[in-house]
């Protein structure tokens, strides 16, 4: 077992993990944070995307042991994040989800897109979303929601990238 300390959604978590345990399994099975979904477990679908030290991260391609000393945010921890609140409203208004399986990864990726691109256009959003797979919506409404959220964003008020 390996001892780890993680700042998880702003709360210090100290635990012992098996070295082979992925960050995704640690979040879901050890911490009960089930917003992080597992689709493919090899980096292709994006459902498991979380934020590690400010960087969008595949939690299926990170070991819990490697997250030692890092700050990890999952969708649960971004409930009151201003950018996430804006995105949630636009996902709702644009009807950007059906079954919702891909939605946590979509929202975290959408937030990352808006932190790196001011008012992204349709083409940019589509390119940036190419690592997020949705089997239901056909993507049109997801793209619409993210573009609309970007339009709503006052130019200078994008949330800091390390939130």
């Amino acid at each position, binding site marked *: 077992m390996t001892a780890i300390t993680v700042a998880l959604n702003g709360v210090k978590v100290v635990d012992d993990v098996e070295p082979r345990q992925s960050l995704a399994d640690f979040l879901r099975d050890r911490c009960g944070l089930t917003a992080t979904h597992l689709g493919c477990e090899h980096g292709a679908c994006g459902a498991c995307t979380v934020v590690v030290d400010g960087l969008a991260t595949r939690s299926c*391609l990170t070991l819990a042991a490697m997250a030692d000393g890092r700050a990890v945010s999952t969708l649960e921890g971004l409930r009151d994040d201003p950018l996430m609140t804006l995105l949630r409203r636009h996902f709702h208004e644009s009807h950007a989800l059906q079954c919702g399986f891909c939605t946590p990864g979509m929202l975290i990726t959408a937030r990352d897109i808006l932190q790196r691109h001011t008012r992204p256009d349709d083409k940019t959003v589509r390119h940036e979303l190419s690592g997020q797979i949705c089997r239901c919506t056909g993507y049109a409404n997801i793209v619409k929601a993210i573009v609309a959220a970007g339009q709503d964003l006052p130019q200078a008020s994008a949330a800091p990238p390390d939130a």
Partner: protein
Amino acid sequence: MKAAPFEYIRPKSVAEASVALGRRGATTAAIAGGQSLIPMLSLRVALIDLLVDISRLDDLKAVTATPDSTWIGSLTTHSQIEDGKTPDVFGGLMRRVAGQISYRAVRNHGTIGGSIALADPAADWPCCLIALDATVRVVGRSGVTVPRIADFIHDSYATTLTTGDIIMGFDIPAPKVPLRWGFAKVARKSGAFAHSIAIVTALGKDGPATVVLGAAGPRPRQMVATATQLAVAGATEEQLRAAIATDLDANFEGLDAYQKRMHTANILRAARDMRAQ
């Protein structure tokens, strides 16, 4: 999709890591970004006893530039290069290549050193660093070696690395005149591994050209006849096609008619982009 059990350590220095990797009687692996190794462990195509985490070794993170060359530490991530956080005296070629690899969340962790160490036939950095004539600095139990990437990668997923070896980084010679380049990729989906990668460079307006084709065989190859033809002022597309056909036959085995057309079209696209600069 769960990895088999293994032991995990995070050494404090390159020397310590090298010793751990050489542990007698154990199958070991270094982990940098984990973006290739973790799926391989999960699929159990790689089975190890000991995982040595080198991802926090500062000695592998240095990035420096002199008038003669650029040094890129092996832990430099694709995202850092994409975002222009490393010097790019290659007219933006490295940024362009970095930004097309996989997806942002993978680029945030995947490293240039991991990509070269793995030597996936369809990976982007091997093509780019061969085109830029880079060398790789390897530290191991038998000392330091500095092979050219083109010699370091000798087959599909095969390099001259031996147990205990660690890639420190890459030395890339600075072009003496501005580099013109073209980069073209054929992939089923943006971010997926490519079926064809073409990188074409030329030194200044009429200097020598380099053409590298990847994903067409076990390892990327220099297309020498094509490069020679490309350096001829006013070479026509027909002449280029003939040179590409010669190079494809000389460097790659078993390409079918479709693959030949695809690689030809892809190289021509890269060449057109370069000639437009």
